[in-house]
């Protein structure tokens, strides 16, 4: 087992090193040009759910059929390998249009692999993007990417089980459970359930991966802590506020179902699930009117939640900027945003599509997540009013998420909170020091 872990670690280490070196070698950057607005446009995207794939393929086919000047060629790369593929491809070999996972955008800007898009995409498209969408795609005042959809994160709960256990629950952002109230609810619910569990935190997704950072770093920010501030992690990710948040998280673990079959909530083994928007369709079908959507616990500074998702940018060496921009305009119109968000259940990232959406707009079953997204901010400018916090927009994000998620996984299995977070802080600071703060 140890041997396997070592082998796995060495593969990861080599891949990372190769990618870093490949990034360094890519050089270039800033050589994009508009072209004449005709010809082939190469597009790369991640191969996600079948329904998402179909929506994107339809969009490309419809775009190609709608005009004769531009021909889009779509290539799909499996989601698990997608970011690695971009990292290991030199800038010259990247396509005209490429999809990017939001938090990785800064590292691709740093590697000079993506081009600013504001001169290629229409102003109408930019103006129609939600604030969170623009924030996610903007670095140092330059717009590099725009998304079709955002993401929603909160608690999905079985209201009938909460009522039966006599647990009262919040009905708005402002009335989110405090950390103590949440722990008390878990104790009560676990005692009432034959399974002995009360909470599903999607351990089956892997706390040591991106899910860990996306889903649980908002706890730090809700407690007044953060992942990083002013390019320093020490005293922030392992500061007293962050430590308190993670100690609270650790105290919930005895009530957590491992959820190996991804069915803890629908089978009634737990009453509460730490929940992303993609789970809503399945939960809604299984629980019907009993499903209630709640904000994440308020650790002291107001409830905070995650945001951000896949977004669209352009390769830094594209010679087809105008044609690529025309395709992005098409991809971000209401019809295609609706088709994609219908396919994956995500909140639309354009104002017009969001206003017309029946799930997230006022009165919809996911209105609370819509409200959360309406109160978004960047990780370096968190206010009391802010609810959804974007993951840090820095080229050093890969090391931040890797270290935090590893610490989180260790904390979940009982490691000392302070030591785990301090270890993460040291590693992050070292990486920033080694890379001139990724400036």
């Amino acid at each position, binding site marked *: 087992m140890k041997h396997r872990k070592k082998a796995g670690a060495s593969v990861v280490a*080599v891949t990372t090193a190769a990618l870093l070196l490949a990034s360094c070698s890519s050089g270039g950057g800033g050589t994009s040009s508009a072209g004449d607005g005709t010809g082939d446009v190469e597009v790369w995207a991640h191969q996600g759910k079948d329904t998402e*794939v179909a929506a994107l393929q339809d969009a490309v086919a419809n775009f190609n059929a709608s005009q004769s000047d531009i021909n889009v060629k*779509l290539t799909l790369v499996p989601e698990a390998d997608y970011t*690695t593929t971009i990292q290991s*491809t030199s800038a010259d070999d990247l396509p005209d249009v490429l999809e990017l996972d939001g938090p990785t955008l800064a590292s691709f800007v740093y590697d000079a692999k993506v081009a600013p898009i504001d001169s290629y995409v229409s102003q109408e498209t930019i103006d129609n993007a939600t604030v969170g969408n623009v924030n996610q795609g903007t670095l140092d005042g330059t717009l590099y990417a725009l998304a079709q959809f955002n993401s929603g994160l909160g608690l999905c709960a079985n209201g009938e089980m909460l009522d039966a256990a006599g647990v009262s629950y919040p009905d708005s952002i402002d009335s989110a459970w405090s950390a103590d109230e949440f722990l008390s609810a878990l104790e009560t619910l676990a005692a009432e359930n034959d399974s002995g569990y009360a909470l599903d935190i999607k351990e089956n997704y892997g706390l040591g991966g991106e*899910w860990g950072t996306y889903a649980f770093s908002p706890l730090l920010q809700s407690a007044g802590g953060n992942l990083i501030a002013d390019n320093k992690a020490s005293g922030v990710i392992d500061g007293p506020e962050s430590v308190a948040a993670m100690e609270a998280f650790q105290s919930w673990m005895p009530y957590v179902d491992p959820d190996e079959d*991804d069915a803890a909530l629908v089978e009634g083994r737990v009453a509460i699930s730490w929940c992303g928007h993609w789970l809503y369709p399945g939960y809604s079908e299984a629980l019907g009117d009993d499903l209630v959507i709640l904000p994440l616990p308020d650790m002291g500074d107001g409830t905070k939640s995650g945001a951000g998702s896949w977004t669209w940018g352009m390769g830094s060496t594209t010679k087809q900027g105008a044609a690529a921009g025309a395709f992005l305009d098409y991809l971000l119109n209401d019809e295609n945003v609706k088709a994609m968000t219908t396919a994956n259940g995500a909140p639309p990232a354009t104002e017009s599509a969001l206003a017309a959406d029946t799930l997230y707009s006022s009165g919809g079953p996911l209105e609370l997540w819509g409200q959360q997204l309406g109160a978004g901010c960047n990780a370096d400018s968190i206010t009391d009013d802010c609810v959804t916090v974007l993951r840090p927009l820095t080229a050093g994000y890969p090391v931040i998420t890797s270290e935090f998620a590893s610490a989180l996984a260790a904390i979940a299995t009982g490691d000392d909170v302070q030591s785990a977070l301090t270890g993460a802080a040291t590693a992050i600071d070292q990486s920033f020091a080694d890379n001139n703060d990724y400036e």
Partner: protein
Amino acid sequence: MTNAQSQRARSRRWRAARSYLVLTVLAAAYVAPAYYLVIGSFKPAADVLSGLGGFAPQHLNLDNYRSVFDSLASDSTGYFWQFMTNSILISLAVVVVGLVVNSMAAYSFARLSWRGRDKSFLLVVALVIVPFEAVAIPLLFMLNDMRNSLLVQALPFFANAFSVYLFYTFFLGLSKDIEEAARLDGLGSFGTFVRIAVPSAKPVFATVAILTFMTTWGQYLWPSLVVSNPRYRPLPLELSVFSGQMPVDWGEVLAFGTLLILPVLIFFVAFQRFFVQSLASSAVKG
């Protein structure tokens, strides 16, 4: 039969029973994962991870296989049979070229006299302990211009130090008398290698072929670094289509896994007779 004889017979039977029991348990431990893989590939995802129930052959259907083929059936995703063909071509190329190159190198080390031979051989043997991960980065830079091709996936694996070592040990054990007789009959070094050494070395050729095929077939790290175009992707990279998304549909993962091991199984069955011969002769040689 005396009491002592009867006791000895009982004791023998008891020992045999114990041996069979241990062997049965060991065999079951080896077979169980393969059985689970195959049986799970025919079951709905919810039935796969149901504890020991996962071994029960119930609710069997072909839906997972349909999903696998449907997910890889367009120009943008690439096609399942295209990935399979890529993997077969890459693996066969590495096996065929590898057998030629490595056997010739080994014969040279074992039978020919040339300056620096022993030191060169030591260097080759030392390469056995260098893991591929250690040379992946330099290779990536050296071959970056060949990205997105079948050749770039095969080229680094043609020459293989371990294969050279296997051939070398075999050629060392070959009788020199026949080779000397062949030379007296006018055969040169290459002729002796082709007509005398190679025909005698079928078991070791089979062993190297099987080991090389299995290793190449399962390559993941290298293709993930050098291939992005679906047209050139090998089959193992596509596993992440099914395992890389949450929630994981384990039925589809197992169906893909079953399809992934089929060619290896066929290759092994085709060459296993020689493989067993090779193992047996190695065991005899001690």
